[in-house]
């Protein structure tokens, strides 16, 4: 990977934000895969009950922020982004801690931003590959894509994919206010309303029984839709 021409876009000014909640068993593998990229890494332990923070702290150079209570993935991402911006991040990448994303995809996400072609890159598993995706999840995500197209007006092929990248200006403009899983739709909303330049990049997502455990259920998707609706009418 380090021999790839894309790896030249990676340096310490690229910050990878990893939100993690009870990921003690899977986080080490995720951090090991990220370490090869030579980027800055910040893990936001979102009030875990297990040894997530200790696992992150065992990795040399990784920044660890701890939410004393569980606030949600959206809140954890915003915390990590605030921290990265305060330390001069030029590019911020969001990356799930459960090991379902592939670190090799990060240079492809960063490249269009480094080339100043776009402000935001969004990972798309439907342009890339979704290994082991169950049919129910595929159906749910397809419906979510159409919902997002209608609500946000963005012609995206994937939504609720945790791997994406922002340039500094975009990261400073976007403010995640929805703490839980609704944040993925909220980010797309803001990309549209702030008229940020964006593109989708093919990525690989690996589904495993453990990652599916923490994924979106049908009930959650209904909850997300209702929260997004309420957020628009109640302030």
């Amino acid at each position, binding site marked *: 990977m380090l021999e790839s021409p894309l790896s030249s876009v990676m340096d310490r000014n690229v910050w990878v934000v990893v939100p993690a909640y009870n990921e003690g068993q899977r986080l080490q593998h995720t951090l090991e895969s990220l370490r090869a990229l030579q980027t800055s890494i910040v893990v936001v332990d979102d009030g875990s009950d297990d040894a997530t923070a200790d696992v992150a*702290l065992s990795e040399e150079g990784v*920044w660890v922020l701890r939410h*004393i209570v569980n606030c949600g993935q959206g809140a954890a991402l915003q915390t990590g982004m605030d921290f990265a911006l305060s330390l001069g991040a030029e590019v911020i990448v969001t990356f799930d801690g459960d090991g379902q994303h592939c670190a090799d995809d990060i240079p492809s996400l960063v490249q269009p931003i480094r080339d100043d072609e776009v402000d935001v890159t969004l990972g798309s598993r439907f342009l890339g590959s979704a290994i082991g995706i169950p049919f129910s999840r595929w159906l749910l995500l397809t419906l979510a894509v159409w919902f997002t197209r209608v609500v946000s007006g963005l012609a995206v092929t994937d939504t609720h994919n945790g791997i994406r990248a922002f340039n500094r200006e975009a990261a400073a403009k976007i403010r995640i206010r929805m703490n839980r899983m609704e944040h993925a739709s909220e980010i797309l909303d803001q990309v549209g309303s702030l008229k940020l330049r964006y593109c989708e990049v093919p990525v690989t997502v690996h589904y495993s029984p453990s990652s599916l455990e923490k994924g979106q259920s049908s009930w959650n998707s209904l909850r997300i839709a209702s929260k997004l609706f309420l957020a628009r009418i109640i302030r």
Partner: protein
Amino acid sequence: MTAFQYTVIGFLTLLLIWELATAARHVRQRRFLLIRCATWFAAAVAIAFPHWVTGVGLLLGIRRGADFVLYGMVLTFIGTSFFFYSRYTKLEAQITELVRHQSIKEARQGGTTKASGTGESENES
């Protein structure tokens, strides 16, 4: 008047007196106390004079007084639900900001022994 009316109106009268006495002591919460007093008073009047409620219902084109009360309660429920949801989201946002502030202040780096958050770094530089 029925036994139910005597019982409930008696209870509401006592409640109203207690609320007014409390309102006199707590100046800062007076607005909400007065809203509650108005609610108890309206409830007592509606129970004591049900034909008045029916009259208002007829005036508004609702035939039965019970329907008028039901519609009023549904609207009030929806209104208060929105109000409390709004309060809840604001409170959640405030707690999140506090948690975020503390976590950034106490940021630690793997391989080091002490906390070294941005707050401390800014002070050092």
